[in-house]
């Protein structure tokens, strides 16, 4: 285990070989007041006085705070149903900025909000991919599309945290899978190339399909713990952005074959995604890596 991963002693340790280990950036969960990027000395000078004033204050809630609350509710319910449950979310909080001030503020914020975060990882400038892989991280999550992109490029399965337009404090954890990649085959790649999709994009779609299987299987197993009515705690959705309906059936059956029976399905056939996503408000948006995910909530 990498020396930079720090255990949160206040939270009960989970069996990471059995748990669904996810890594989330601290800038998604908290409003880091400008400290989220690794800063230059000049930036530090600018932010320093501000930081000194806020030294012991917890960070404010960030765009994906509702997500971490929803994850927590799922864990709580799973343990309520079975105190010996090992299929839980095991959250690693990833921070790029490793300065001692920020580290302690992040740790304090986690305690302040009572967050079920098992480990901290302060990566600094280092490549975060290897420690994530060696810690069995099933999914890296961030509200920042660039973060997600970089992770995918380094072979870490990654998905977008959709920015919630309403700070929901109740409701299920919503996991959305974009299923067009599931319908991608040699036949269908050619017309996509003709329409202007680059090789890199096509490759990332194909790679996304493989990575999706592992996470979908986990979600399927976890979803089954709650029974058919359990979509009030964990709600799984399929979205087809452009594929025709037969591909949608194929995707539903593929996911079913992996053990995931999604609760909701949307087939858009090219219609604009933003209004649908704005209403659906997913937490995790498992896209094909085409960077089409919406960062801004539309017309809330």
């Amino acid at each position, binding site marked *: 285990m990498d020396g930079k991963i720090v255990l949160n002693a206040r939270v009960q340790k989970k069996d990471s070989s059995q748990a669904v280990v996810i890594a989330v950036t601290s800038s998604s969960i908290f409003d880091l007041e400008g400290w989220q990027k690794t800063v230059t000395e000049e930036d530090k000078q600018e932010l320093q006085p501000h930081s000194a004033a806020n030294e012991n204050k917890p960070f404010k809630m960030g765009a994906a705070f509702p997500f971490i609350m929803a994850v927590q509710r799922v864990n709580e319910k799973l343990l309520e149903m079975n105190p010996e449950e090992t299929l839980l979310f095991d959250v690693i909080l990833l921070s790029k900025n490793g300065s001692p001030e920020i580290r302690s503020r992040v740790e304090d914020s986690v305690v302040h909000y009572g967050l079920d975060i098992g480990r901290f990882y302060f990566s600094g400038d280092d490549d975060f991919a290897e420690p994530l892989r060696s810690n069995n991280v099933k999914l890296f999550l961030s509200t920042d599309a660039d973060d997600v992109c970089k992770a995918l490029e380094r072979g870490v399965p990654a998905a977008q945290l959709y920015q919630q337009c309403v700070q929901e404090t109740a409701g299920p954890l919503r996991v959305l899978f974009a299923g067009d990649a599931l319908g991608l085959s040699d036949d269908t790649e*050619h017309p996509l190339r003709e329409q202007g999709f680059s090789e890199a994009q096509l490759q990332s779609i194909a790679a996304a399909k493989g990575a999706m299987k592992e996470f979908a299987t986990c979600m399927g197993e976890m979803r089954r713990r709650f029974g058919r009515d359990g979509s009030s705690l964990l709600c799984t*959705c399929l979205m087809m952005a452009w594929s025709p309906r037969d591909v949608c059936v194929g995707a539903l059956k593929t996911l079913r074959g992996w053990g995931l029976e999604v609760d909701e399905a*949307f087939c858009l056939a090219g219609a604009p995604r933003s209004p649908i996503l704005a209403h659906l408000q997913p937490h995790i948006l498992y896209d094909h890596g085409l960077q*089409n995910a919406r960062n801004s909530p539309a017309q809330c």
Partner: protein
Amino acid sequence: MSAIKINDVSNSKDDSGEDKDWVAAKAAYDNLKSTKKPRPPKPQHAVTIAVSSRTLFNMVKERKIYEDEGLERYVAHQQQHEEEPLMPGVAFPFVKALMTVNARLRELYPDSEELFDIVLMTNNHAQVGVRLINSINHYDLTIERFCMTGGESPIGYLKAYMTNLYLSKDSEKVQEAIEEGIAAATMFTANKENPLSDTQLRVAFDGDAVLFSDESEIIVKKHGLDTFFEHEKEFENKPLAQGPLKCFLEALGRLQRKFYVKNERINCPVRTYLVTARSAASSGARVLKTLRSWGLEIDEALFLAGAPKGPLLEKIRPHIFFDDQMFHIEGAQELGTIAAHVPYGIGQKYHKGKLIEQNHKRK
């Protein structure tokens, strides 16, 4: 009721991402080897009709399983019978007629996006989607857009899809939609099946509280018919306010004009009817003048002067008939017309002229 298509919902900065989706859809549809299907139109140009699963297909038996045995058993049943197509439902003839109109529009305007777009909008569970899509394939319906919300209300998605008309069996959802400014109606099965035209879509509308507001109905209910007649004569030249289905008539009119422009008025595959209890002599003029002031045409205006609507509708054979009063819906059903109730206005508080108690909620 605003025409929601005029205001574009999507953000302009999202355009590049959404263009990619649009382009990918074209690629996907162009690539279909088995059945060449046209890509569905862009929502902002299309006339979007959202139908629920229970209006598109007959799911009475399955619904009973859901009500008696619960969700788990219901979904399991649907999965077991996935490969068996469902029987057509009450909105099926209407959907087929929409497809006929689309075929004619594509002949005349091969590149136009101004078509009917049929969306399956259901709070059915996504796993039932497999059977629904298999059934859609079986009847070769052009439905490519789906929202299966697994128990959540689909109302929010109606706006997201820029829906022009929503049809459901659930009157609560229909009411919610109307309150959100979306034309909607609760569909009822006819007691017998009248053969319908397969070359022309026929849509019949009641006037007050459907195309027009219920302002005049209020006068009838509160002050009686005589006052109503006087009032209508006095205000003959003042247009009535809009009703929940005005925008849908408008959308139909836009498509009709595309045929007129190409000299196809005689063979126009869309025909609209006004079937109103008003009488031509006393209160009819205001209605016609209102339509004219809105720039809308209606092909046939039938003034019944209070006579029952059933027999006339049986002659017209519409694919759908919209009325706000259950009394007329029942009259239509009896003689084989597919009727759709618009739960709007003061008519909801009355049945057969008598004020009803609002103490029970529809299931």
